[in-house]
């Protein structure tokens, strides 16, 4: 899943929005590294990022532990506000 600034992108088949791709890019972690850390196939990380697969609670916790963030900071049923907007606010 790619959530654009205008929020038009959907959550994929799982119905879950997530920030895995953003967090990976921010921390310079490859899909393979994340997959190895949480014990899944690297393709599964791609499915998660696109929102085509909804993780089990166990996998969601493992991803949260890996990024040292609570689950709700990574997965949501509602679109995430862009990080820039969350940090700096809407200046319009």
């Amino acid at each position: 899943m790619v959530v654009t600034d205008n929020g038009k992108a959907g959550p994929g088949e799982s119905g879950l929005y997530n920030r895995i791709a953003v967090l990976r890019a921010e921390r310079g972690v490859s899909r393979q590294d994340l997959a190895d850390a949480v014990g899944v196939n690297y393709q599964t990380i791609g499915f998660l990022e696109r929102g085509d697969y909804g993780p089990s609670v166990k996998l969601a916790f493992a991803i949260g532990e890996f990024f040292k963030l609570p689950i709700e900071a990574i997965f949501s049923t509602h679109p995430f506000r862009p990080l820039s907007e969350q940090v700096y606010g809407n200046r319009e």
Partner: protein
Amino acid sequence: VRAELILMGRRVDMARQARRRGLVVGIYILLVLLIAALWYFTHWREGFYWVVWAVIGACRLFLGGYYRGGLVKPFDNNPPRALQTRSPFLPLGLRVYVSALEDDREWRSDERELRQRDRAHYLAYQTIGMAVALQLLVALVRMKEPLVQAWMAMPPDQLYYGFAVIVLTLLLTLPQAILLWTEPDMAAD
């Protein structure tokens, strides 16, 4: 689903969906040709076993699912035992099963793959169920309609053998084919 096929000691990149679909189509074309040829030449007197062996070979070398060879990880989700790691093909120099035996994850499916496996079996068994229903329908029509009997001038045992071969072929290959067909392009990053 694995991203590469190890065949004759060579690694064949199968990360692209189009390649995997091509493989599935190629295997089914060859199986259909084999089934048609064996029916034409032997009328299932000896041919049935050749189809079974061909299907087992296709699973073992290309499709996977039941053995350590092939693209689809074993459905039972268990790594092979140490005794099974040596292949009788190795002394022949074919080196079919040399893929990453050291990594347990090569054999175990993760939660998404297990879900896909179950879904593929569900779809496959639905299809097979329809094939069996079709078989019963054909048998029923054949019994009732003399015109159809004349048109399908085939002894009942041949007809049933034919359907049995088709059902067995689908039973052993369709779940893997569905998985290979539906898995999108694989990219490490």
